[in-house]
């Protein structure tokens, strides 16, 4: 595996977490694995930044957590999106798309003579 050259932009982690939780409630471990898998191993999130992010989102009441039993019969804390989180995600997504579109437009502009 290549070195994780792609460090996450500040604030992007929150967006990714919220987006992945939109699909289904997930525990921390699975969340880390899914970020890695969905991004084709490009984005690697370590526990040291994932958990503080989750707690921060929880403190802002964007996600909430419950203890559930996982498929291998283990207690795990499962995070899910709240209504506020859903709204926040929509806003953040729009902002991100605007931002990435702008960055792409600059990067892909036709060569000037």
């Amino acid at each position: 595996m290549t070195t994780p050259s792609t460090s996450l932009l500040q604030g992007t982690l929150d967006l990714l977490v919220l987006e992945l939780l939109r699909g289904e409630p997930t525990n921390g471990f699975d969340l880390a694995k899914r970020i890695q898998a969905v991004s084709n191993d490009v984005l690697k999130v370590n526990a040291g930044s994932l958990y503080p992010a989750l707690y921060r989102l929880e403190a802002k009441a964007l996600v909430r957590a419950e203890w559930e039993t996982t498929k291998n019969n283990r207690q795990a804390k499962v995070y899910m999106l709240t209504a506020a989180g859903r709204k926040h995600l929509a806003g953040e997504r729009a902002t991100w798309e605007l931002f990435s579109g702008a960055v792409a437009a600059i990067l892909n502009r036709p060569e000037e003579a």
Partner: protein
Amino acid sequence: MRALHAAMNWIRQLFRGRAFEREMRAEMESHIEQQATLNRARGMSADESIAAARRDFGNVGNLQEAARDARGTRFIEETKRDIVYGLRALLRTPGFTIVAVLSLALGIGVNTAMLTLGRYVFAPPALSEPNTFVSVRGWYTYDAWRAIALKSELFEKTVVYASMAIAVSGDGTDATKATAQLVSDGYFNMYSGRAQLGRLLVPGEGRDGSGPVAVVLSDNFWRRRFGADSSVIGTTLRLTNGLRVTAVGVAAENFKGSTVRAADIWVPLAARTQLRTFERVDQRSISPFTDAKTQWYSISAQLAPGVSAAQAGVQLRNILRHLPTADSTYASEAGDILQVGGRGMINRNNAAGITLAISATLMVLLIGSANVANLVLARGIDRRREIAVRLSLGASRERLVRQLMTESVVLGAIGGVLALAMSQLILRVLSASEILEPLDAGRETLTRALTPDTFVCVLTFLMAFVSVGASGLGPAMRSTKMDLGRASRDDAAALGSKFTRSRMRSGMVIAQVSLSLMLLITASVLLRSSVYASTSDLGFERKQVIATSVSSTENGYSAAQNLEFGRALQLRAEQYVGAEHVARGSIPIAEMDFVRVNPASVERRTTAIVSASPNYFKVLGIPLLRGRAFADQEARDAAPVAIVSETTAKRYWPTGDVLGQRLVLAAEVWSRAVDSTIVQTGREVVVVGVVRDAQNTGMGQVAPSVVYLPSDTGSILVRATGNAAILSSKLRELARITDRDVMATVRTLDEVIHEQGRVQGAEVTSTYTGILGAFGLLLSSIGIFGVVSYAVSQRTREIGIRMAIGAPQSNVLTMILRQGMMPVFFGIVLGIVGAIAATRTIRSMLFGISAIDPLAYLSAGTVVAAVALFACYLPARRAMRVDPCCALRSD
């Protein structure tokens, strides 16, 4: 909405700190296990899979710290922990805690109590329109007020008021002394008065002159005199001069009007001529201020719109300039004539006492704070190892200072709570004693008024935090700045130079000792003065002579009525104790007039005039040295004869024979007590006798010049052969039999002396400073004890070595005592210097002894030295018993 939700969430988080920690650990454990399971599935061994998972997860501690930060409750949680830690630390050292908390409670409690009391006593009056309110300095006649009130362009309205002592009777019970306040229309309105029963006075009240005059009672008087009986409304009472009044209402409980303490009864100004037999009889009075024949009024006013106080003041002076000078007391004085707002109740007479009380109170706070500072300093030294360890483990300096400050705040909070409790205790004791009697507000009112309000509570805690914080911050900063290596090796020098430290602590002991000594010296000087007042030989009998006087102004008697009553009462007294024990004349000290004798002579000093019946000298025990006493006939006729005191004889006839000499009485008679007919200007009298000097003109005035003139009127003086108290009550009964509605004042000469303002003031102030001094001394001795104990514990090893090589126990004792008493000695020297300065300010309250009374200084100094020595001795004794073997092993 979301913000609210987040806030709620945050608050919830605060309360589930421990649950959060548990969940966090479980969650991370679960994460690691899941990773390990995955690892095992990839073929790792059990041990290896867990190790790899942990490695992968990273530093759990760092992560947890970051997670805690993410919750945003870290600061609060740390503070919570600091508080718990602080409390535990305080509990671990109960000695320190008890002493520190008690020092705070005592030092601040006394201040809180004084603050509460001061706020009650000096509360500005409630004003309906405080912004335009002005009070006019000085006193004015009725005419002057009319002249001022007519200038309507300056003031929207003006009110006048005057207080006077009166007697209330006529409802079937005995006559009672009361303070009446004559008030003009609008008085209640200006001071936002309300009635709790009936009504207040309405404009124009009492002006029609027919029927009883409407009056309003104060809450206190209503309770005191009428037992809070609401049926008093509508009853007719009799005041001085036979003025018939009807109580129409009772003012609200907290209504004080213009005065520091409420009057008992408010009478409309229209009734003034009926209440007083005289008003401005004498136009030629030379000293309006001492002339009792004029009724003086105070004036308050509401400025007219658009008029400033400065403008009004200038205008007012113009008005006064056109009035007769005898109409006001302030026209010739400098300074602002108008005072804005309702403050300024402190008059110059009690300013010295109040300043003394305030400074004494603050001194106790200083002494207490010095103790706390001393303790915190000592503790900082004891805790340096703990702090060093924490610093080495990576605690930030800021974090440690914060923690130490939190501890200080915890200490301050406990101290503040106890200080409030202590102040309540002090106030309860005070209101149960007679010290607050001059306030005379009634027990219930006083208790309610003296409950601390929010302002007082806030200030109390502020005092607590400031005194702990100020004494805690320095050591906290210093102890966190230390050299780690040396501190963990327990090197005392790690915490700054040992010399500076001990000098600082000694400095505090010096301050404490000197402040306590100042308080105690002041107290004992005042005490000596009041003891002197009550025990010294004044040249006349004070314990066994009872004076009965009837004030014609209070009872509204005419001169003839007064004379008649006096005769009747004299007769009854003579029947009871025998004529030889009854005399008439001036009451020593209380009733005295001054004249100039022989105006042609070079002598400018005044001479006291005392009226005396033939029995006067025998009853008072003033021995006749030469000549003879007055004859009965001379007393009846007010014959032109006189008896003089030794000093008078020496002053006017230094060489020759006194008997048969003539003396001429000069003008400037401010006659109050002595019948004015016998001291007319230019009257010539022949000296028929000389009596021994007596201090009958005033306390502390040794051997005054006195001229006695014959008279058969004046106060009735009775010599008791047996118990004076029994005779006093008998005389009161006789006065009642003579005229039920008359209020006679019956007291022994001892009580007369005691009632002199200076004696009372000195006693109250002496008690107060004495108590504070005792508190201060207690606190200081704790401080001294602490400092010496600490020094002993520091020097245990040294002492052990000394003893091991043969130093006798007495040497060790002397060494420790010398070290401990050094700052005490400096403190005493400084205290004496301070006391000399302090007692100068109370000279006006003293008599008979000097402000630098050696005995007072010596005794206070001895007490302080003895207590300090004892405080040193206790730890020194411990040092003496040091076992060399143990000491050498101790660190």
